[in-house]
């Protein structure tokens, strides 16, 4: 009896499934036009964004030098990476140091400057947005920092410090391992007001002023409370978007370090995961090893993004001023 019931349950389930599939197929047929519209994008996106990730994961378990066909070696690349490769550990340390500092600081700076700029009158605001956004779009202008931080007494920073009597010797900013990272972090921060910053500007301009006024009627006392209880909660989607941009950017640092501190840098002091990847992929042609590095980077980026998104969901909790009616009479 029981089994029969189960059986009929199961067959019902399968019947339902069959029906669903039929429905889906019918829907898919009806939306053929939609798929045609998606097709060009999906082809390119799959070929150059999705497939590479899959290939990377596959090759990371092999030894592959392009000339011979890949040979399966299991976890060996990962074992070498974490247990035998000291330079990789330096790279990880540097990458995390850069990410942990420039990610959050760049993100906060993007928000704070967007918030301050938002208070300005219209024309000045447009100019200020351009000024703060310019470093991240003006191509290779960051190379100028190499001249400003030049290691001899012709370097502007050195000249200034010597003039002020702070040092009497030129500091080798970009070749001395002790100074390299701080200088690089300053330059990376300088370029960190990017797409997220623009999203914040837009989000702030979209906030309804009457909502803020209503908040003051309801007992908000100052700008800080206004920020936490009204402004931040109403920009949550932009905050999430900005965080994704900031994390992706802060883990992918390579161009700046390679251009300013050299490649390879003195004692590998400015090596990042991406420069390590670049080294093995394009100089040493050890594709399997390079793929393992890329896979580690990929997983780190995705995990950090997911974690931060969870964290940001708690923003603006504990207040109920947003809709302008906090009390029920």
């Amino acid at each position: 009896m029981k089994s029969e019931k189960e059986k009929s349950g199961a067959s019902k389930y399968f019947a339902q499934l069959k029906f669903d599939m039929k429905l889906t197929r019918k829907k898919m047929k009806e939306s053929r036009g939609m798929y045609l519209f998606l097709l060009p994008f999906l082809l390119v996106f799959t070929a150059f964004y999705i497939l590479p990730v899959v290939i990377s994961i596959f090759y990371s378990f092999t030894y592959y030098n392009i000339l011979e066909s890949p040979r399966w070696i299991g976890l060996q690349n990962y074992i070498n990476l974490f247990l035998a490769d000291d330079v990789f550990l330096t790279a990880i340390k540097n990458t995390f140091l850069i990410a942990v500092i420039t990610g959050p600081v760049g993100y906060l700076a993007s928000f704070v400057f967007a918030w301050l700029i938002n208070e300005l009158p219209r024309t000045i605001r447009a100019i200020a947005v351009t000024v703060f956004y310019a470093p991240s779009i003006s191509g290779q202008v960051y190379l100028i920092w190499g001249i400003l931080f030049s290691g001899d007494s012709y370097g502007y920073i050195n000249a200034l410090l010597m003039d002020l009597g702070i040092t009497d010797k030129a500091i080798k900013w970009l070749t001395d391992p002790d100074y390299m990272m701080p200088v690089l972090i300053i330059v990376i921060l300088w370029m960190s007001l990017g797409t997220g910053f623009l999203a914040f500007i837009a989000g702030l301009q979209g906030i309804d002023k009457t909502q803020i006024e209503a908040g003051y009627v309801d007992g908000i006392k100052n700008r800080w409370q206004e920020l936490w209880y009204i402004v931040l909660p109403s920009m949550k989607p932009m905050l999430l978007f900005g965080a994704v941009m900031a994390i992706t950017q802060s883990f992918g640092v390579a161009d700046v370090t390679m251009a300013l501190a050299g490649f390879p840098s003195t004692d590998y002091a400015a090596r990042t995961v991406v420069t390590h990847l670049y080294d093995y992929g394009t100089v040493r042609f050890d594709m399997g090893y390079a793929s393992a590095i890329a896979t580690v980077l990929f997983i780190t980026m995705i995990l950090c993004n997911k974690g931060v998104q969870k964290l940001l969901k708690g923003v603006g909790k504990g207040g109920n001023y947003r809709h302008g009616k906090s009390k029920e009479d």
Partner: protein
Amino acid sequence: MARVKKTKKLGRSLAGNILIYGVLVLFGLFMLMPMIYAINSAFKPLDELFVFPPKFFVQNPTLDNFADLNTIMSQSWVPFSRYLFNTVFITAVGTAGCVVITSMAAFVLAKFKFPGSKIIFRIVTTALMFSGYVTQIPNYLIMAKLGWIDTYLAMIVPAFGMPLGLFLTKQYMENIPDALIEAARLDGANLWKVFWKIIMPNTRPAWLTVTILSVQALWNSKAIQYIHSEDLKTLPYALQQILGGGVSRTGVGSAVTVIMMIVPIVTFIMSQRSITETMASSGIKE
């Protein structure tokens, strides 16, 4: 009068405003410093470039550096105009394709529900979370398999699949009323007509934003790993070679830097309002 009163009520004070301006001016100067330096150096005569102690601002501006740049260009192995053409060509074609193809995909994802639409968008959103460095090496292998090494295709086609472009456009298109589309469909317009005649004209801010992002990326693209023949190399590559000429090229290098930064900054200034409008719908909804 009334306005002053209102501002006060909102917790604004004069001291606070002065502080805000102070902070913004200070950091604004920091942001602009390298650009100001590059512009000054580009106009410095030779003796001012190497004066000791170094001077930040130019005393006797001259166009010598730009003239020198012109000389170096005409001496280079491949005519310099070739590098310029390559960059302008890949920027123009890549951007045009990127705008149309990402908009097409964004349109159906934003306005219709069909099997797979949700999961596709989620994958694209996830793709925002890792940078191009992760995919660089397999991309090379794929290009090699396709036979695209040393062709324009290697530089142009990947731009057509820009996840950020699809993401921003889709978010923006969701604000377009469905009634507009339905009315057009009732009039007998097919999907393509709806897209081209109704969606595109109404989403100008979105595709202008994608244009800017794409121009920025392609204009600075060196693509050295895919391109070996000198004929196909781009402007940023050529400029890097000039800068690689050492200290004696400092003045010319600055001239080059100024030329390179003008295009992205000017395009941004011209389209700032559209970009802000698009970004207003950029959020990731929970």
